[in-house]
Every structure is written in C-alpha cells, then in structure tokens.
C-alpha cells in the first residue's frame, strides 16, 4: 500500500472560539442583536429604560428626609437650585407618617401585639407551607393560633378565645360520643349542635363568670383604631382563614348529587363572583346593619371582614373544587372500596390531598384579596390609601402625591411579590411530586 502522507496523524490543539462568539460580545450577539428585528427591539427598550430612569432617579434622590412640611421641602430644594415642576421628592412625609401608614391609630405602646401576631402567623403557617422542613409537632401551635391571633390584635379577656376554643373541644367530644352510638351523620349533626349551643347560649355566661373570678386579659383595642397596612393584612388574613372552611363546604356542596344543596351552593358562588367587591363593601357600609335584627350594631371593620369573607369563600370554593377535580378518580374509588362513608372518605382521603394541591390557588386568592383590601378606602376606612388622603388633608402635607402612592405601592409589591414567588415554588414542588 502506498503511504498516505496527507492524512494528519496527530490531533490539532483546541483553539478558542472566535471573539465574537464568546464572552460578553458573544452573549450580546446571541441574546440582544440576533437579526435586525431583535436589534431594533433592544435599542428601543434601552432608550425607554434610560429615559425612564433619567426622569425618575433625580426625583427620587432628594435630601428631604428631615423636612417637616411640604413648604420646607420646597425650601430645601430651592436652596439646592432645583427649580421646576418636579424638583424632587419630599420624603419628609414618609418619615413623619410611616408608622401611621403601617399601624393606623393602633395605640403606639401596644405595637408589639400586631407585630407579634404577624410574626407568630409565620410560625403557625410554617408547618403548612413548608411541610417538608418544619417538624409536624408545630401543627399543634397552628391549631391554637386562630384563637391567639384575634386575642393579640383585639385584646380583652383571655377567656373569650379560650371559650371559643372550648366550643370545638365540646363539639369534638359530643361527636365522638354520638358517632359511636348513632353513626357518622348523626354524630356530626350532634357535634355541630353542641358547639353552637355552647357558643350562642352558654359561653357568654361562662366567660362573664370566669372573668369575674379570674380577670386575666390584655388591654382591649377597638377595631376602629386599626388602620394602615395592618388593617389590610388583618382583613386579608381573617377573611381568608374564615373563608377556607366555608369554601370547602361550598365546594363539596357544588360537587354533591343533592340537587337543592347543589343549586344553593352554585347560586351563592355565582352571585358573589358576579358582582364587584366594591358593591359588597357598599353592602357592608350601608346595608348590613339593616339586615341584622334591630339593635345589633357591628362596627364597620367587622362588617367589612364579614363581606370580605363571603367574597373570598366563593373564590375559595372554586379553588377547592379545582383541587377536588384534579384528584384521580381512583382515590374516590379506593376510599369507597375501603368501606369508608362519605365524611370519612372526605376527611381521611380526599381533603388532605385536594387541599394540598389547592395551596397555590389559595395563596393567589389571598394575594388577590389582599390587594383588593385597598377598596375599603372608598367606603371611608383608613387603609394605606385612605390614610394617604387623610395625610394630604393635613395642612403640612397638603399637595403631596407621588411619595405616598410610591411608598404604598412598594409595601404592597414587596408582600405580594414574596407570596407569588412562594406560590410558584410550591407549584414546582407539587408538580414534580405528581408526575
């Protein structure tokens, strides 16, 4: 055979890729300037961003933190030679009022209570939200927390939340006793009845009696003093927490074979979802007292919480229904084949799974409701937006616009963004679990 001399026997050394395909330049070619359309888009976006920042940044960086009135802000800025329509922000208003924007008129010596309530809320939610990282023992705390939360915020005698808790305990024992003798449904009916009797008829006297013997309690705060961001969070949290059980019942009702029950549930859900929240708030502010027996009188924040709860429970029902629908049929059949009755199947098999799938939906319902709490400013409650009007009515700060809106927007953004990130994290986690 002839010698093939033109075939190279050793491998060439690796060469670096061309400069324009690597590093920053390569990345830019790839991601920003691939083709004329993309290049045009990039340049357009860049111009937009630069113009926006150029307009906003000088306004934001304004040394007015210590000003005590809008007039003083204007002085400071004029002293710096900044003139014109928008010489700079007047941050003094935030320094002066940020505490009010957060807590409203809550007594300042009691600020620890809402702070603690919301910190503990995180602790109570942890075993639910991060079920894989937090010991399950904490669930006991989660169960007690719904009674602790209102007590911390509203204060008053310790016996009130304890007696409310006692209602559940009594209901449970009656249920166990009746369940053993007369079967599931009768047990549930008896348990609920016993709890209702306790709450509506007996607990009032018991609380009074206990309070007279052993007055333990913290200073009561009227809900009228709630305001600012705390009010938004309170309405949101309470409404979502209360709407969860109602939503579950409604979702089950909507799925049930019982025609009348189904019609009632569907009617309620569609009615609530068909009207804007603001009309429900009008009902809270103008009509709810008319619907109640003569002489009853809730204060406006409770009325708003009631309507927000009804509103949220309709949406919650749809979320839970989605969770129920996502469960494979085999789960229902499996529960049936084990001989569980309807309520046992729901309690032991269906609901734990359906609720777990529903958590992202519940979180986004909460985000939606939380944002919607700003609507209460329209009926005269002093949430952050309502307070911003009250602050602008102070002659020191009359004429302030952007600083307050910006601050409030930032508050909402931080909270909602964090929650939506969590919900996305959870969705990813649940997805991998199911496929």
């Amino acid at each position: 055979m002839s010698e093939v001399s033109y075939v190279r026997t050793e491998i060439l050394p690796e060469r670096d890729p061309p400069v324009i395909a690597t590093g920053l330049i390569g990345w830019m070619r790839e991601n920003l300037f691939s083709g004329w359309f993309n290049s045009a888009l990039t340049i357009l976006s860049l111009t937009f961003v630069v113009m926006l920042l150029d307009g906003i940044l000088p306004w934001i960086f304004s040394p007015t933190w210590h000003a005590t009135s809008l007039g003083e802000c204007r002085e400071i800025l004029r002293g710096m030679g900044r003139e014109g329509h928008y010489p700079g922000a007047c941050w003094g208003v935030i320094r002066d009022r940020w505490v009010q924007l957060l807590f409203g008129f809550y007594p300042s010596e009691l600020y620890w209570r809402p702070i603690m309530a919301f910190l503990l809320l995180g602790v109570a939610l942890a075993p639910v939200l991060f079920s894989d990282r937090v010991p399950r023992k904490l669930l006991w705390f989660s169960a007690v927390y719904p009674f602790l939360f209102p007590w911390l915020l509203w204060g008053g005698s310790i016996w009130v939340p304890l007696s409310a808790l006692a209602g559940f305990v009594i209901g449970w024992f009656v249920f166990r006793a009746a369940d053993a003798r007369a079967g599931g449904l009768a047990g549930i009916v008896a348990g609920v009845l016993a709890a209702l009797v306790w709450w509506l008829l007996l607990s009032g006297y018991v609380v009074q009696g206990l309070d007279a013997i052993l007055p333990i309690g913290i200073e009561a705060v009227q809900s009228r003093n709630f305001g600012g961001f705390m009010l938004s969070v309170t309405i949101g949290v309470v409404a979502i927490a209360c709407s969860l059980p109602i939503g579950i019942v409604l979702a089950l009702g909507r799925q049930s074979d019982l025609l009348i029950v189904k019609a009632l549930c569907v009617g309620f859900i569609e009615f609530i979802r068909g009207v804007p929240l603001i009309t429900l708030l009008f009902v809270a502010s103008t009509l709810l007292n008319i619907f109640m027996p003569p002489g009853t009188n809730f204060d406006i924040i409770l009325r708003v919480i009631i309507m927000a709860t009804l509103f949220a429970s309709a949406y919650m029902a749809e979320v839970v229904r989605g969770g129920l629908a996502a469960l494979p049929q085999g789960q229902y059949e499996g529960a049936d084949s084990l001989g569980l009755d309807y309520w046992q199947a729901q309690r032991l098999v269906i609901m734990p799974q359906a609720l777990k799938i529903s958590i992202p939906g519940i979180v986004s319902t909460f985000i939606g409701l939380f944002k919607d709490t700003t609507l209460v400013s329209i009926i005269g409650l002093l949430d952050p937006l309502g307070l911003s009007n009250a602050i602008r009515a102070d002659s020191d700060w009359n004429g302030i616009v952007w600083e307050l809106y910006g601050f409030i927007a930032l508050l909402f953004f931080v909270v909602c963004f964090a929650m939506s990130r969590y919900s996305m994290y959870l969705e990813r986690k649940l997805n991998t679990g199911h496929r």
Partner: protein
Amino acid sequence: MATVSEPPKEAFRLSQLIYDTRYRSMTIQIVALVAFLILIGWLISNTAQNLADLGKEPSFRFLGESAGYDINQRLIDYNNQDSHMRAAVVGILNTLLVAILGCATATILGVIIGVARLSKNWLVGRLMTIYVEIFRNVPVLLWIVFIMAILIETLPPPNAFRGDDPDATMKLFDTVAITNRGVYIPDPVFGADAKDEKGEFLEEPVGWRVGLGDFPIGASRDNPACESYYATEGPGAGEPAASCGTFQVSLDLLLVLAVLVSGFYASHRIKRRADRIQEATGLRPVTWYLRLGVVVLPFAITLWALGFYFAYPELRGFNFQGGTHMRNSLIALWLALSLYTAAFIAEIVRAGILAISHGQTEAAAALGLRPKRIMNLVILPQALRVIIPPLISMWLNLTKNSSLAIAVGYMDITGTLMGITLNQTGRELETVLLGMLIYLTISLIISAVMNWYNRSVKLVER
C-alpha cells in the same frame, strides 16, 4: 341457582329518614332548603323592621324623579332634568364602554407581552417580566389613581395651547389635542353639505350630500326638542335636537355598516367560488383585487354620498370644542385596567404557549416554517384552547374592576346609581341592590356568551 329475593317489606319508620340512604339525601335537602328559607325570611323581616323604624318604606319611585345632577360623559343624551333611571342607564353604558375598550386592549397587550416574555431577546424578556411582576403585585386601585395623577400632572392644560408661541401644540397634523383634561380626537360627521366644518348646521344646505341624519326613537310632537325634527325648513330641518326621543339612531352609520357587511359577504362569496374552482381544476383564480374592490369601493362611495368628513377639535373659550372628547377619567381607567389585566393575560398566554409540547415547534420547523409562522399557524391556535377559559375570567374581572371608576370620577353605574343617586335620595337599599343586580346580569351575560364560544371552539378541535 340464583334466587332474586325481594327486599323485605317493612313499614316505614321515621328513623329511616336518617339511616336509610334512599331517604337520607331527601332529608338533607329538605333541611337545607328549610334552613335557607328561614335565613332569607329572617333577613327580610329584619330589613322590614329596621326600615319601618327608620321610617323609610322601600320604593323605587325615586327612579322616576328628576336627578338634578349633571354627568360629563354620556353616550345617550342626558341633562339634569332627566330621571334617576336615565342617569343609571347613562352609567351602565359608560360601564360597558370602558369594559369593552379595556377587554380589547388588555387582550392585545397581554398576547404581545406574553409572547415577548418568551422572546429570545434577553433585554425584552427581562423588561416584560419586570412589567408583569410590577403590575400584578400592586393593587389595581393604586394603579388607577396613579395613572390618573400622571395624566393630570404631566400633560399640558388647554391653556398651554394658547398664544402665538404656545407651550404645547396639537399632534398628528393638528388633528389631535392631548391635554390634561383628556384627548380630543377628530369626530366623524356625515352631511358635509348641510354642516360647517365644526359640525354645526348651516342656514341652507349647499348641495345634496346632506346625509340621512338621526332617527329619534320615541319622538313626539309635544316635545319642544323635536321641533326641528318635524320642521320642513330652516337650519337642521328634519334633524332632531339632542334631547328629542328616548334615544337616537344614526341612520348614516347604519347604512355604512350595512354596506360594509354586505361588502364582506360578497367578498366571502368570491372566496368560496375561488375555492370551488381550485378544488375542481387545481388552479386558483386571482381574486384579491375583486375581493378588495367589493369591500372598499361601495364603502367609499357611500361615505362620499353621505358627505362624510372629520370635524377637528379647536381651542375655543375655556376648552377645545368640536371633535370627540375622551376624558381623562376614561383614559386613566381604561389604561390602568388594561395594563393591570394585561399582566395577568400575559401570564395566561405564556402558560398556554408553554403547555404546547416542544415537538410541535420542532415538527413545524421541520416542515420549513419560519419562526413567526410557527407561532401564528401552529402554536397559538393550539394554545388558544388552553388560554380561553382563564381569559374569560380575566375579562369578567376587568368588567367588575371597572367599578373602581369611582376613584377617578368616571361616571359609571357605581358613580351614578350607587354614587350620586344614592347620596341625593338616601335610598341605600334600593340603589345598591339594583346596582348589584345590574353587575350580576352583565357578568352572567359575558360568561354565557363566552362559554358558548368556548364550546364552539372546542368542537372544532380534536
């Protein structure tokens, strides 16, 4: 051998109502129904009692009384002597207007942004993500007041257009005025030979292109506003004044629409014929000029014959006059609702596109389609099936959120019926319940129509 045994006949016992599954569901239902009726009865009796105590008998008579207040934006004629009822109708129309405008804009924006979020362009993708996060996580009410404040504070007042060397000028060849009171755009007017360039009637028509005018529905000779409608000569003879009749229909517009629709129908027929020929012979006749012609030519001729022209806005007195005035409140509400909802729709669109398996894209690419056509012909049509149901609920949300108009003084149903009418008459129960009923009706109609559409789309696929 299998024996079929009859269940033992037993006398009906009361306990069967609870323990026998045949009767139990009936028991539960009846108990639920009775409880519900008791609840309703309790609420009604409370309400009746409370209202009697307050001395306010529920009555809808106030709807017929004169409203006494003015509304700036009205799609049908209204003045402060008209009834509360008519004010409410004006409000409903305003609600519908902003809802329709908002839904259209939000959908278009949402689709663009949703697609752009998946763009290969890093900067564009990031910007769109920032947009979505910022708009989704801040309350819509805040956006509405924020955008209103931006419009008011950054745009020039009409005053700035005045003088020899004005601070602001009209845009687009002097046809559009953007002020902080709103945007004034040219107003389409029919009847060039009977009207001057501001849309006012001339003493005598100068030609035959006077248009068909408006037809007042419910006009009567007793109404002084209808005088000119029944007159045979004088300026604007045959034309009803603004408050003549319950509402007025523009005959010109109807004719133009009719011509347009028949043009499209003819065009469709031509296409069908071309399809048939193509199927029969394999050759497709060139029809685009015919199809264009049957739509455009009759349309243009009709417009000309009706004397169509634009009345341009012009600064006179305190404000711009002439042209169509889109008020700031409308624009702020419209923009805010569109931008806010678009952020949600973008997420829906993105999720819909991502739900289409990558194989589809690859298969389309293998067929030699360009990326843009892959998106238009393969991905989007399939994604649509995933997108439509959540999209409907976004539209419903937008419609319901339009009730926040009250924050910027846009006179929708919340502003008129549940706002000023409630304040002036003190009829909380009637106005709020009526308002809720109206919103409920609108919502139910939208979801019924959309669900019907959704079903019809579903049938076509798979």
